[in-house]
Structures are given as C-alpha cells and as structure tokens.
C-alpha cells in the first residue's frame, strides 16, 4: 500500500525548474532515499510534499493512517500545518530548532497538533487540561528517553552538541505522531561514529514507531545501509530509481553523481 | 559598555523603586525638584502648608511639543506681570513653571504635580484647550483655581467652578467674524476646517450659525499635520465663495494661503486668534496679506493705561513688542490671579474661587468680569491683517 505518491510534481522558480516531473511512491514501512548532487532539487521535493511550496504543476497524494482501502487524498499545496496534522513530519537540512526554548519544550510543542482541549479550557485550567498537559509531558519524556536526551530535558535546545540537536529535531518530528517521516540530510556534519549511530537510530525508530521514512542524504554509507529503495535526482530530473544495489551499478548515476562527489 | 549600562539601569531601577515603592515614608518620596520641596505633612489638603512667606503661582503651559510657541509667548507675558507685581498680601510670589508638553496625558500629571507636589495656590494657563480640559478635574478636586489664558473651548470651564479664563470663547469669536464678514459685504463663504482641532470645529459651528448655513457654499476638512491643501482649496473654490473661513493653526493657515495664491486664487481668508504668530506670515509669505483675523490685543490699538504699562514692562524685559496677543493674555491672567488673592485676603482655594466670581478688573485685553461658567465676559475684539511682513491693526470691534 502506498503511503505517499507524487504525480508529475514540478516546481519552477521564475525560469529555473527546480524539480521536473517528479514521480515517486513510498510504500508503508519503507525507508526510501532521495539522493543527488547539490541543487538537484531534493529539498524542493520535500518542500512540495510538506506544503511549504505549492507545486507549479502535478500533485501529491497521501494515504491517511487507518484509512483502510480508501482512495489516496490529494494534499497538493495544502498548508504545512495541516499536512503535519495528517501525519507527515519532517526535519530540516539546516537544523531549525526553537532556539530560545528548552529541549523538553521543543518536543512538547510538537504535541500541540494533537491537542484536543481548546484555548479556554487551557486558560481556565480545567481538569481535562491538566490531564492532557500531563500526558503530553509524559509522552515527551518517554520520547526524549528513547532518543537519549532525557538528561538534557531542561537545557536550552541550542546548547546541545550538534549531533544531539539533529536527534532532538527527529524526536520533535516524532512527537507529532507521524506516519511518514521526512529526514533532510540527517547526517550532515556528523563524524563517522555519529553517522553510524544515526543509521541504527533511523532503522530503530522505523521499527519502534511503525514509520515510513523518506530520506535525503549525501552520506552514501547510510543510504546504502538502510534504504529499501533509492531515487536519484539530477538538475530536477529523476535519473534513476531502484534498490541500493541497482543504483550502485547504474552508469548514469555514477556519471551524474557518484562520479562528481567523492564519497 | 554593557556593564556600565547594567549599572546605570540598576541605579535607575533603585531610584524608581524609591519613588514608587517607598512612598510610605514620611516625606512623600524623593522627588527632586527645581524648587525646594515644601515640608508636607500627611494631610494633602491644599490649604496653606509649609512656607508661609511665599505665594506660589503655578504656570501650566506647553513649553515643549506642538504648541510650544504659544506657551512660550504666554510665559513671557506672565513673567512681565510678575516683574511688576512680585508681592501680594505681604508675601513674595514665586512662579512654578510646569510643562504640559501639549500632551493630554502629560498635562494631567503636570497638573497633579502642581497642586499636590508643588502645592501652588493658584494656576495660570494654558495655551490650547485640550490640555486644560484634561487637567481641569485635577484643579477642581484639589480646589486650586486656574485662570485659563487662551483656551477658548467651552468645555474648559463647563461643570468646573475652579476653571476661569481671561480670553473670549469660540462662540464670541466665531459670531464676531461672521458679523464682520457680513459688514464687509460678503454674501457667500466657504469653510475649510481642521477636523482634528477642537478649537477649529468649535469656531466653525459658531461662524456657520451666525453667517447662515445657506450662505456657506462649500466645506472641506483636513487633519493637523497636513501640508497639502490644494485639493481642498480647489474643491471649495469651484463653488465661487467670496471669502474663505479657515479656522486652523497658524502653520496650516500660512500654508493654505500660500497654496491658494500659488493656484492663482485671490480670495480673502478669515481666521481667528491662533493665527497671530510670526510663523503664519513667514510660512505663507505675501499670500497672507489677504487675510483678516480676530485677536485679543494689539500694541497699535488705542493705548489704555494698562496696555502702556504692559508694553513698557515688556520692552524693558524682552525688548521690542510682544509677538502675539496671547502674551497679553498671559499678563492679564496673572494679574487676575493676583487681584483675586488680594480680594480674598487668603490663599484658601474656596475663598479664592469666590473672589474670582466677584472680580471686576480691567486688563490689557479689556474689562474682565466672569460669568457663571467662569468665562470672561469680554466686550472687545481686534481685527488684524498682515502687511509688509508684520501684523497690522485694522479695527477694534466692541460688542455690547
């Protein structure tokens, strides 16, 4: 069953076509990677899926969790917050944590999208509000525990070391209780040890949280280790698609990508 | 730098807390003042407390802000009067200047400060009505009489037995201008009003009432701070009025007449007392020679003993002639205040109030008797114009 599908999604900025006719599909519980040289349009693809950009043409289809065999929903150009509400969470290439807030608050806020009590019940501190607030805190602490950040819960998010900030960003995304997780270069700037940890971590959260993961990554190690399938983009065009083994052997990819970047 | 600043802020904080928080101490808090603080007890009554040998006259004027020019002129008049009469009931008179900043919020705190911190016995001022309206209740509650100088709006003295004024009101002035226009043979008029100025809309109403609404051929409005009036002028001129009545501030008046002239219109502008500042013809240039406006006093009018005394003292103190009629009003207001203290024989607020209601004095700007509202019943106004870069006296209109 496909969780996400793009049909001819195209994004143009002025005269530049950042993503051209993107057709990808992601099956449930898969880890799929998008690779490609810098400027290939990977992040733009993410932005189209999460609603930050509205595709110039084409569409994005999404299967809501627990929707059985119902038809996929067209989420093209929906607002990012609504898409997050549907169960698609993401991280950012250049870490975007809430800088002025604690690690715990960063995760807490991601629960907001699932909050059921309204503003007035929150202000009046009705019992229901206490209950949901307590639950939120518990859930967030469990999550921090699971990513190994529980000890840092009250520190300022930006005071964490780089690797942990990446993890926190993932934890924050997980707190929105997504079905599909989009990771934008999660290993950027990490050393080999951290990269290895991250690889395991991604595989593990996929299993623990029953997730489907779409990943952008330059680190071939990670990509080859954990991806079920890989799409290769170059200048906005999809030039190859297949299993890691297939991609590794694809001559187009080697010239376009692997040949250029030594990795 | 950061550290020094932190230090400065900490000091500021401490000072502020001393002022606000520790007010429970005996002496009302450390409020450094230009004048030695009076030795106030816990009783806030405005009866003479502290120094028995001085009488304090509070000056409530806009010394900064939009109306600073007017405030400064009146202050000159007050100072001249003070130089002539510096003593009453055998006590020295001290002037306490308080800037109301031409701002309504500041005006109220300034008034509070005058009556409660400085404990003045009587107040003189202000130029402009809105600050007086804002501060009026403060003076009334403290039972400190205030003598308004050039605040011409009816609301100033309304329901306030402690506010008096030596100037005439908008209704008198508006009516007088309408009559003047009719006497001069003008049949139709257009009105351009500053809607953001209470003084202007007041004048407009009385002018229109007296001139006859059917004779007003066109109306237009603008807001204080506007600089372009070409749209308004062009639109009212389309109705071919014989005269334009433009109650407004002096700067706007100057600009308006200049722009009318630039557009090639040769029409008489009528205005009121606020126009009498040099700025008006400086800004408007020769175009302002085509105007008439009312005012309270003119040095070139037939001299009276009072005006001679005033002009001589002014010459001695500041040199030359007063720049505007409001200087004379400042002078008169002070003189009225002193006359009231003399008549009451005390500085008790209630006695002073009573004395003021019964007062009948002749000042530089004419005879001054207060009606039941506390408004001076004036009987004369002066019509002036601009000529050769100066104001020129045209006539004195006496109404009975």
């Amino acid at each position: 069953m496909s969780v996400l599908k793009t049909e001819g999604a195209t994004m143009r900025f002025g005269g530049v076509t950042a993503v051209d006719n993107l057709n990808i599909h992601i099956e449930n519980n898969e880890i799929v990677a998008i690779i490609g040289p810098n400027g290939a349009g990977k992040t733009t693809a993410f932005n189209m899926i999460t609603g930050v950009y509205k595709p110039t043409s084409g569409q994005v289809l999404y299967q809501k969790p627990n929707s059985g065999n119902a038809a996929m929903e067209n989420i093209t150009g929906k607002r990012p917050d609504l898409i997050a509400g549907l169960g698609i969470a993401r991280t950012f290439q250049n870490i975007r944590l809430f800088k002025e807030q604690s690690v715990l608050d960063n995760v807490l806020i991601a629960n907001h999208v699932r909050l059921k009590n309204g503003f007035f019940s929150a202000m009046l501190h009705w019992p229901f509000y206490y209950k949901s607030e307590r639950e939120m805190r518990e859930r967030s602490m469990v999550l921090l525990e699971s990513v190994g950040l529980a000890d840092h819960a009250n520190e300022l998010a930006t005071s964490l070391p780089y690797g942990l900030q990446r993890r926190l960003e993932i934890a924050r995304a997980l707190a929105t209780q997504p079905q599909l997780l989009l990771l934008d270069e999660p290993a950027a700037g990490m050393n080999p040890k951290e990269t290895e940890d991250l690889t395991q971590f991604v595989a593990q959260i996929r299993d623990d949280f029953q997730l489907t993961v779409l990943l952008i990554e330059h680190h071939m190690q990670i990509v080859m280790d954990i991806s079920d399938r890989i799409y290769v983009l170059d200048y906005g065009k999809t030039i190859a698609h297949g299993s890691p083994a297939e991609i590794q052997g694809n001559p187009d990819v080697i010239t376009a990508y692997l040949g250029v970047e030594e990795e | 730098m950061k550290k020094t600043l932190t230090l400065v802020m900490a000091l500021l904080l401490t000072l502020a807390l001393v002022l606000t928080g520790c007010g429970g101490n005996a002496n009302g808090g450390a409020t450094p003042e230009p004048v030695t603080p009076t030795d106030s007890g816990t009783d806030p009554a405005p009866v003479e407390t502290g120094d028995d040998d001085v009488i304090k006259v509070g000056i409530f004027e806009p010394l900064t802000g939009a109306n600073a020019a007017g405030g400064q002129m009146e202050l000159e008049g007050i100072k001249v009067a003070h130089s002539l009469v510096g003593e009453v009931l055998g006590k020295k008179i001290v002037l306490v200047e308080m800037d109301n900043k031409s701002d309504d919020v500041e005006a109220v705190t300034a008034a509070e400060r005058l009556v409660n911190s400085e404990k003045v016995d009587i107040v003189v001022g202000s130029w402009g009505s809105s600050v007086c309206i804002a501060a009026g209740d403060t003076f009334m509650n403290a039972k400190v009489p205030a003598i308004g100088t050039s605040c011409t709006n009816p609301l100033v003295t309304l329901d306030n037995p402690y506010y008096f004024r030596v100037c005439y009101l908008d209704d008198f002035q508006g009516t007088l201008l309408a009559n003047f226009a009719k006497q001069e043979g003008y049949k139709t008029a257009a009105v351009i009003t500053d809607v953001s100025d209470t003084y202007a809309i007041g004048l407009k109403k009385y002018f229109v009432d007296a001139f006859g609404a059917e004779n007003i051929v066109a109306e237009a409005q603008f807001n204080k701070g506007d600089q372009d009036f070409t749209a308004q002028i062009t639109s009212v001129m389309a109705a071919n009025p014989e005269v334009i009545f433009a109650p407004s501030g002096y700067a706007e008046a100057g600009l308006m007449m200049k722009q009318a002239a630039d557009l090639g219109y040769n029409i008489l502008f009528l205005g009121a007392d606020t126009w009498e500042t040099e700025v008006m013809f400086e800004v408007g240039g020769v175009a302002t020679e085509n105007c008439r406006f009312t005012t309270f006093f003119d040095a070139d009018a037939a001299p009276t003993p009072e005006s001679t005394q005033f002009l001589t003292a002014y010459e001695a103190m500041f040199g030359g002639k007063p720049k505007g009629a409001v200087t004379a009003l400042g002078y008169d207001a002070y003189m009225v205040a002193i006359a009231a203290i003399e008549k009451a024989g005390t500085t008790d607020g209630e006695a002073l109030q009573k004395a003021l209601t019964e007062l009948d004095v002749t000042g530089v700007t004419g005879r001054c008797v207060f009606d039941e509202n506390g408004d001076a019943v004036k009987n004369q106004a002066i019509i002036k114009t601009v000529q050769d870069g100066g104001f020129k006296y045209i006539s004195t209109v006496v109404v009975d």
Partner: protein
Amino acid sequence: MALFWQNVANGLTVGSLYALVAIGYTMVYGILRLINFAHGDIFMMAMYFAFFAISIFYIPWYIAIILVLVATMLLGMLIEKTAYAPIRNAPRISLLISSIGVSYLLENLATVLFTGVPRQFPSIGSLQNSLVIGGVTIQQLAIYTPVVMLILVALLLTLINKTKTGMAMRAVSKDFETAKLMGVNINRTISSTFAIGSMLAAVGAIMWGQKYPQIQPYIGVMPGLKCFIAAVIGGIGNIKGAVVGGLLLGMLEIMIVYAQPGLSGYKDAFAFVALILVLLIRPTGLFGEKVTDKV
C-alpha cells in the same frame, strides 16, 4: 473641465514630490531590506540644515544646496555607523526598533536644538512662481520636480547598474554573506547606500520645502510615512516602482477629495487604506519582485 485638469495638475505636483522622497526609501530598502523609519527624520534634518544655511548664515542657495547635501549625507552615514552597523547581525526586529529609536531621537533632539516653533523654509530661485496654461495654474516647481526626479532616477540607475559600487550594492542586496566572501567591502557598501539614500532625502526635502515652506521637528513624519507607502505601492526596492507609486498616491489623494469633498477629513487615511489594499492584493507592489523564503 478646467477644474478636473487643475486637480490633475495638483495631483501630479504632490505625486512627484512623494515620488522624489520615495526613491530614497526604496533604494535603502532594496539594498539592505531595512525599512528606515528614520528616513522622514533625516528629511526633517535636511530641511533644518537648509534653513540654517540660507536663512541664518545667508549662504547663496546654490552653494547652500551642496552643503546641505553633504551634511545630510554625513548624518546618514553617522546614523548607519552608530545605530545600524553594531546590530547588523541581530534579528531584523532589532534593526527595526533601532530605526524607530533613531526617528524618535532625532525628533526630540530637533525639538531641543531648534525648539518646536515652526520655521519658514527659504525659497530658492523662481521655483515658486506660477504659470497658467489653459486655465490650469501650475507652479514652476511642479515642472522642475519631475525633471529633478528623472535626473536622479537616471543617475541612480546608472550608479547601480554601471559602476563598481553599484555592483557591490547589488551583490549585498542579493546575499550578504556571499557578497562578503566574494570580497565586497560590506561596511563601505552599506555606508555609501546610506549616504546616497540620505542625499536623496535631502534633495526631496529641498523640493518639498519649496511647496510647503514649513519646518518643525515632526515635519518628516507624515511625508516619511506617505512616501514609504508610495514605495510599497510601487514595489519596495524598485526605483521605477517608487516613481509610479508616488505619482499614484498623490493623484489618489487629490482625486478622492475632488470626487468626494465630504471625505476630505479622511484624507490622511487614504494612503493607509491604499497601503493595506496593496499589501492584500499584491504584497510585492506593482513592480516588486516576488521573494520566496529559503527553507
């Protein structure tokens, strides 16, 4: 009909003055992405400079104008160095508050230095004389202002597109960090941007003073706001847009009063309503380029 054309003439006169001042706004914004709230107050200071030079020190006007331009330019650079440069890397909101602070400070400072009493702006040459063409009265000023404006626009466009400084300015406006890496002297470029922006304010002030010869500390507030609005209508950052925006705003103000004299009391509100409409319908203005946030 003459009435209609008279109003058109009035609108063009006001509009070209708006446009003249709006150019300065738009230029600073285009390069630094900063709304300089103090622009109107730099304008005000330029008027005072002119007043002192011509009316107090009796310097001939053609020399005085140069002095005023230089003085205003220095003032602009001083403001940039003290109030904007130290917090260049701070959040944008701080820069905005800083420019509000400068505006507030200049107004209060002017009140202390020059008192609140309005002064008369000295008149220059024969600009104030009027011509009558087919029943429509036009001040010579109304003819000179667009000429001055066009010359300035031409100079400015040449500067920005043809010179090295201009290239540096464009680089800075595109990407601060990259420009720095490419060896552009950021400090000097920003300084010259402010210098030119302030000079434009001074030119605007001198022309404005011919039409509205009144100076007081708050004189820059309304022109500042309205010319900013004009710049936004045209698409802030775009010099041609500022010209069109200024003319449109001037015409709008005059023509609404002409069509509906009863609304003249609301005249100051027109500009704000226009601003809000433009921001709603076309936030980038008539000629502005679309800016996409980089994620």
